[in-house]
């Protein structure tokens, strides 16, 4: 499972919000796809050393946004993500970062084709990694 959540306690953003944002982001950039299973509340709580109620709160919000769904007796899965479901500001932020990255790539001397190839290769690799598991 390609789910790396890293919690930073001590910053203004509440922990449940950090979990919501990181899972939404992972879906938005394709690290997680519809159908992928994510850890149970108890499991994630232990993995990231966070109160289970905090994780449960994050999952409830993600469920309300339609990003995850829980199947009784089976587990919690990514159900999909449309732009309106995701946090718009996060998507904007990612898009800005991509623009900066493209600028940097051009400054380095890469052609448009080369940039496209590089991007596709990376995306392909991230899909493959997921297939491995």
């Amino acid at each position, binding site marked *: 499972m390609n789910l790396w959540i890293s*919690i930073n*306690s*001590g910053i203004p953003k509440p922990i449940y919000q950090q979990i919501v944002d990181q899972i939404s982001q992972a879906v938005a950039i394709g690290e997680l796809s519809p159908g992928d299973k994510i850890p149970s509340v*108890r499991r994630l*709580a*232990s993995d990231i*050393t966070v*109160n*289970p*109620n905090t994780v449960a709160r994050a999952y409830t919000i993600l469920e309300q946004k339609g990003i995850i769904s829980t199947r009784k007796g089976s587990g919690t899965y990514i159900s999909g993500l449309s732009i309106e479901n995701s946090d718009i500001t996060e998507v904007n932020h990612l898009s800005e970062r991509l623009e900066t990255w493209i600028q940097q790539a051009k400054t380095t001397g890469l052609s448009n084709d080369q940039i496209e190839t590089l991007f596709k290769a990376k995306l392909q690799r991230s899909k493959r990694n997921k297939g491995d598991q």
Partner: protein
Amino acid sequence: MPDYVIETNDLTYFHGNQLAVDHLNLNIERGRIYGFLGRNGAGKSTTIKLLLGLLRPTAGSSRVLGCDSQSLTPEIRGRIGYVTEGHMLYRWMRISQLETFQKAFFPKQWDQKLFDDMLDYFELSKKKKIRQLSNGQRAQVSLALTVAPNPELLIMDDPTLGLDVAIRRQFLEGMIQLIQAQGRTILFSSHILSDIERVADTIGVMDKSVLRADCSLVEFRESIKKCRFHYKDNLPQHVDIEGLLHIRRNETELECTLVKTSEEKIVEFANQTNALEYKFLDLNMEDQFIEFTQSATKERLFHWEVN
């Protein structure tokens, strides 16, 4: 009806003629990790000692696991784990001797595997004498001894005081593991707000012997805000907003710390006082705690002249 593991009823205690705990009404539900906050001397440790019947209240009462704190039976005590401030252990004993000693109090419920696993995890040899251990290692032994009897209620008084980050994290992990078992409850005090934020779901803030906040952690995080109003020049002389804790001002700006103030009231105030704009400042939990507990009137401790 909620299932309260700890209930206090106007619990009050005087140290000599000094008020240490003032009409405390605290209810902790089963299954919670309750983070007990307060500055030094606020009354947290005294409260914990009162709950465990180690001190006799001047007035009021408390119940733990349904039993009055003043008459806790051995059976009830057997269901409570207590980690004291400073991890008091017999210094001349070996870990193995302490184990035998502690186990004797909990013959039926002692989890030998858990105890051994924890020592393994901490890389502690049972042959070691307590006086040979570092502070952190003593804390680890103390945690293992307290958790091995599978306490239904775990009370820890500033358990991570003076410990390094790695050992602190082990304590937090231990708390999360323990709470996952059905029906467990933890009450712990700490000064490290980022730790509390990670593991607690409910918090209480003691301030000068009084319990000033008792709510979910999310509610605390959402209730305390700092808002900065910007003015052209005419700052309002009199500031009247619901939930105002304290204010700071300079020539053109007014900074208000607010508790549970609705956005409407803030907009209303901004309009009434002709503010050009206002914005919320980002606060982490530590900032919020400091804002909440600092006295309204005090000036800064000192002022550096920077040139």
